[in-house]
């Protein structure tokens, strides 16, 4: 009797899950499976046929110095831009939470950057950071040759990091502010009455209480910096100069769509996926231990 009931629950459960499973299968597992298949073959772009090459695509990518350069550029980009975007957002949110004059205005204004599409903001930063015509031209007047993203890889990397961080400060700000406001006022007031200053209250009360949010944003920011950087790189540097900003996601695009090397691009996207999975597992395994959930 009990068995029957369990069985019928099982079918109903599956029935409810089917639409969702179908969607996931069509838009995630099927293309991902296709990418895995392509990465193991050499595809003729016009669909004229393909040859099974096993792991050759991976071997040739991983033995290519340019690819390792692209991986390290992506890691540098992810590390610095995540750090910058989170730190600035944290400071801004903490200040806004203190309800200083004008904080209502900041609360609205600071979330705007996230609403701007990456190519549009990249275009804006291209003008701002142009060494001959933009804001940086003034700096170059004072120190000639100081800023040259056209030839200096470090300058180019700095430009895309600034543009990306600017966008994600807005995103992070919303979450940080919400987290701060979820902390009971009484805790902070009690600490204030005990005589602790602003900094002290931040480190001993607010910071530990928002660690779940910090952890969440860390995971999201790192993942997005691998994926959402495409539009910014495409408009601002096209991966140059001399591959200095050829991030993994941009290299996939240029090899696959411009170079018509579909198999190589598929293999690279598998590697990128694995890298993000490994990074995320690492974060959950080692950083989440220090997170205090209430």
């Amino acid at each position: 009797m009990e068995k029957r009931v369990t069985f019928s629950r099982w079918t109903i459960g599956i029935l409810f899950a089917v639409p969702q499973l179908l969607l996931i299968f069509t838009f995630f597992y099927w293309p991902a499976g296709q990418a895995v298949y392509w990465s193991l073959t050499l595809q003729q772009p016009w669909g004229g046929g393909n040859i099974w090459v096993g792991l050759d695509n991976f071997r040739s990518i991983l033995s290519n110095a340019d690819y390792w350069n692209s991986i390290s550029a992506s890691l540098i980009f992810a590390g610095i831009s995540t750090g910058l975007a989170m730190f600035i957002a944290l400071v801004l949110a903490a200040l806004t939470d203190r309800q200083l004059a004008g904080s209502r205005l900041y609360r609205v204004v600071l979330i705007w950057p996230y609403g701007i599409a990456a190519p549009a903001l990249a275009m804006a930063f291209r003008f701002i950071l142009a060494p001959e015509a933009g804001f940086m031209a003034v700096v170059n007047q004072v120190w000639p040759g100081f800023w040259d993203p056209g030839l200096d890889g470090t300058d180019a990397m700095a430009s895309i990091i600034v543009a990306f961080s600017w966008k994600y400060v807005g995103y992070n700000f919303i979450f940080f502010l919400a987290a701060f406001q979820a902390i009971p006022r009484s805790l902070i007031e009690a600490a204030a009455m005990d005589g602790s200053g602003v900094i002290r209250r931040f480190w001993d009360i607010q910071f530990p209480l928002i660690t779940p949010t910090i952890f969440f944003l860390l995971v999201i920011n790192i993942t997005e910096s691998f994926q959402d950087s495409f539009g910014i790189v495409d408009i601002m540097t096209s991966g140059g100069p001399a591959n200095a900003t050829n991030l993994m996601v941009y290299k996939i695009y240029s090899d696959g769509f411009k170079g018509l090397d579909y198999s190589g691009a598929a293999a690279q996207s598998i590697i990128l996926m694995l890298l993000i999975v490994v990074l995320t597992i690492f974060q959950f395994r080692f950083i989440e231990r220090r997170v205090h959930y209430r």
Partner: protein
Amino acid sequence: MSIFKQGLAALAAGAFSIALAQPAAAEPVKFDFWFGLSGDLARVVDTLCKNFNASQADYEVVCTSQGNYDATLQNTIAAFRAGKQPAVVQVYDVGTATMMLSGAYKPADKLMEENGYKIDYADYFPGIARYYATSKGEMLSFPFNSSTALMYWNKDAFAKIGKTEAPKTWEDVGADLQAMKDAGYECPMAINISANESWQLMEQFSAIHNQPIATKNNGYDGLDARLEVNKTKFVQYVTDLKKWYDAGLIKIKSKDLGQDMVQAFASGTCQVIMTSVGDHGTVGKTQKEGMNWDVAELPVYAGTERKNSLVGGASLWVLSGKSDAEYKGAAAFLNFIHDPKTALFWSTNTGYIPVTKSGFEYMKGQGFYDKAPYKGRETAIASLTASEPTEITRGIRLGNFTQIRAEFGTQMQAIFANKVSVQEGLDTLVKNGDAILDRFQQTYPGKTLP
């Protein structure tokens, strides 16, 4: 992301026009033409299409811009794999090898023959025809928008250093640039060193000096061709450019830095640039008031016998898998474009040059080249026809050449940023370029170029 949007729009447009293409009695047969030009040039193509539709009642061409050359090729491939390809598509010069191996086209010469059009293929300028023809000389596609690289020079600046003519040799260029620098010009010459400039810096230079870019006659004779620009005169050229850059005679100008080469020249900031004849109109329209300038053929090193320069631009391919009625329309369309009167319309409204001798003669007869703003554009024809094409100056037939151009940009940037020496940079270019060619060859096992 816009690429995906364009792709979707293109697919939608394709599906839409196919739905409309069901032939009803007396309705004109519709067929699609996808092209990669945008802005002003796209409007000229649209007018061209309207003129074709108005010139006869049997066919109607539906012209859709895909934004740029890369996107046109990508979208066409996607459409072809889904069986929704256009009848005619514009493919850029360096996509020729990829197209030839695709098996997705109907040879243009066969199409015209089947539909009763007689095209005199000897009428095409040989430098243009050979670029798109097979190694046996058959035309698989029709040359459409064509250009070549020229040197633009500021007459006022050269007058200041006592010159009334453009320098003919690179030795003279070096001396003139130095003289202009001494006369107080901040930017005697502007170049850019991204993937796009592979065309004028590497490809045109090599052709004019009859230097190979790759073995096997630049790839015409087989997929096993490999680069060899690290041991030709090109090495000396890059060395000189770098030397002049270090001496402040050459400045790098690109859009990313705030001002591109053409803007820098038109505004009078820089005195010499090398760019396509297609920019002739832009310079004329945007130049500083009263500035005197002209165009000249690209210089050569002293003692070099000048050869023809290479054509740049795109050709029209007819894709396989369409109905006979659509092929009839496509043939009529290609025939219309081939007409000298269309050549005059096309060249007047764009900076492109006529592709046939009869078109050129017709335009000369109309007095096109006698007065500003078109005066000077005949230099492009002189450059293209400087000699009969040799085995090497026919063109470049290398797979995935877009990626090789990208590698060119990367290595030039590394050289100019002093990260590597000229020889090291060019050696890396050859090494990485060969890996790209090797991969292309592996993708098409057992296939040969027609």
